């Protein structure tokens, strides 16, 4: 329970954000915060793979692309109903996750990292080749999806994203505590032992891979609606790298980790880039420093120190 407190504080703070933004920053800040929340959703799903299963996927951004492009293409073709878009997105992402997961999970360690990277690159090139939908340049959406008027409220999209974030955070937390999550955690420690005990580790991992993929694809739908623009860059390997950074920065396998990580990542990116145009000169070494010296990420700062 204690581990959930930082995330709960963050949620309260986020819920008040549109009000606070009236005084400081306006729609620019709410846009930024929405982006951070969407990244948090994607990072939560990636942490199910990294933190719970011990599977480092380097192609998770592919699912962001699936969600975003499904939305983009559906809206361009005249289907603006959000429920329909979500349905199609879930169907496609389940299919993609089942196929790529079944192949990737035959491997482990570095090979798993590389093969997920390869699948991510395949989707990246597929999106780049969709010349009818913008190709390399991406696709601008002239209208958003319709959700029975929910988006028309002031800050409607903001609270829908926040609501999804909290729901997914809660559900993934329950999943980790449930028998399903414990089997995965145990298999991360020693998969041979779990096999011997009679658990089909492959099936459990594939299920987790599909769940993670679908959640990331939902985040992709949100990105498309927030930015009103989709581009192949969403599923580039650097994006997958960003998601891993967020998970590690926040503290992998920790209840509040991905949420704190995403907020910190966007905050850091924003403040450094306002400081200097060449912010990567600072961010790169900072990342190395974090990896070398800060084990456990931000979430571990809130944990009771154990002697």
């Amino acid at each position, binding site marked *: 329970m204690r581990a959930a407190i930082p995330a709960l504080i963050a949620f309260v703070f986020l819920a008040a954000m549109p009000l606070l933004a009236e005084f400081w920053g306006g729609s620019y800040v709410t846009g930024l915060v929405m982006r951070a929340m969407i990244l948090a959703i994607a990072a939560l799903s990636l942490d199910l793979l990294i933190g719970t299963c011990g599977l480092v996927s380097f192609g998770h951004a592919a699912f962001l692309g699936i969600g975003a492009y499904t939305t983009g293409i559906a809206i361009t073709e005249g289907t603006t109903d959000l429920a329909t878009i979500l349905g199609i997105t879930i169907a496609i992402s389940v299919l993609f996750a089942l196929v790529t997961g079944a192949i990737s999970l035959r491997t482990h360690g*570095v*090979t798993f990292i*590389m*093969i997920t990277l390869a*699948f991510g690159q*395949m989707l990246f090139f597929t999106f780049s080749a969709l010349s009818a939908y913008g190709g390399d340049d991406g696709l601008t959406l002239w209208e958003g999806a319709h959700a029975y008027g929910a988006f028309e409220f002031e800050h409607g999209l903001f609270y829908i994203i926040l609501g999804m974030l909290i729901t997914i955070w809660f559900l993934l937390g329950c999943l980790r505590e449930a028998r399903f999550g414990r089997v995965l955690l145990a298999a991360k420690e020693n998969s041979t032992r779990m096999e011997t005990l009679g658990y089909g580790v492959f099936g459990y991992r594939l299920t987790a891979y599909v769940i993670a993929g679908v959640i990331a694809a939902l985040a992709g739908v949100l990105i498309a609606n927030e930015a009103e623009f989709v581009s192949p860059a969403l599923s580039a390997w650097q994006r997958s790298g960003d998601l891993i950074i967020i998970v590690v920065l926040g503290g992998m396998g920790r209840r509040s980790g991905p949420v704190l990580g995403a907020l910190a990542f966007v905050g850091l990116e924003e403040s450094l880039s306002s400081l200097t145009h*060449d912010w990567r*000169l600072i*961010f*790169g070494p900072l990342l190395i420093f974090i990896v070398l010296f800060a084990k456990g990420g931000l979430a571990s700062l809130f944990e009771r120190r154990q002697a």
Partner: protein
Amino acid sequence: MSSTLLLIQLLNGIQLGVLLFLIAAGLTLVFGVMGFINLAHGVQYMIGAYLTVWFYGMTGHFGAALVLALLAALALALFLEFAVFRHLYDRDHLDQVLATFGVILFLNQAVKVIWGPVPLVISPPEFLAGTFRLTENLNYSIWRIAIIVIGLAIAALLWFLVTKTRIGMLVRAGASNAEMVGALGVDIRRLFMIVFGFGAMLAGFAGSIAAPIYSVEPGMGDGLLITAFVVIVIGGIGSIRGTFIAALLVGLVDTLGRSTITDILKLFLEPSAANQIGPALASMAIYILMAAVLFFRPEGLFPAQGRRA
């Protein structure tokens, strides 16, 4: 497609394969011996290219620029090994991926700050510039042929070093079981440093000789790095022979794929559909190849002998 065009594409494919081999050889040795994933290996390639252009501007002599660039690239690699990578050998792959990702971010940006975002161009040394007649109406760049020759020579040298010398024996032993080699009294840290420096220099060298044919720009190593990873995974990690074969395979599949897939598709599909799908499929060809290889042989085509997964 005519046979001369096919010949040119074959040569281009081999040339790309040779370049990939130079990059992937270092990567696979570093990974095989140290179990260290170095994403920043592609940056060494970029640095090699930039330094060559820079020293070429200063000295006006390609050979001198090449040597100076290699020495400077080696110095940078050893500094990075000392300052960052050394502390990562005992960490898990995730930490290695992240920290070396940080190195990429920094160096890509640093190159942009120092040399600007505009691509630089450089001409090959005069006696290797120009083209020669391949057939009546087709010419081929001498420099590309030179790259193939140099690359094959280095591959032969590497084969000799790895299979016939004492240090090569240690490297092979390290790829099979680094702990055991250390336990037998070999200074494994020093071996790591030699392998690392050598690998980085090979990547820098690849950058140097690639500078006259590709545009020299920030981030030029990133795409090639990913392809080099595809190569070492297909070839089997830690195996020089596997890397060589996989590099040529990937070079050929990529080059031939880009020039033929669209035409082949036109046999089955409408031209407009073929033009849509062709380029995407061509870009994906090497990844499909990799996924297929891993599906049937998760350890790659020629895994290092005795290597434990």
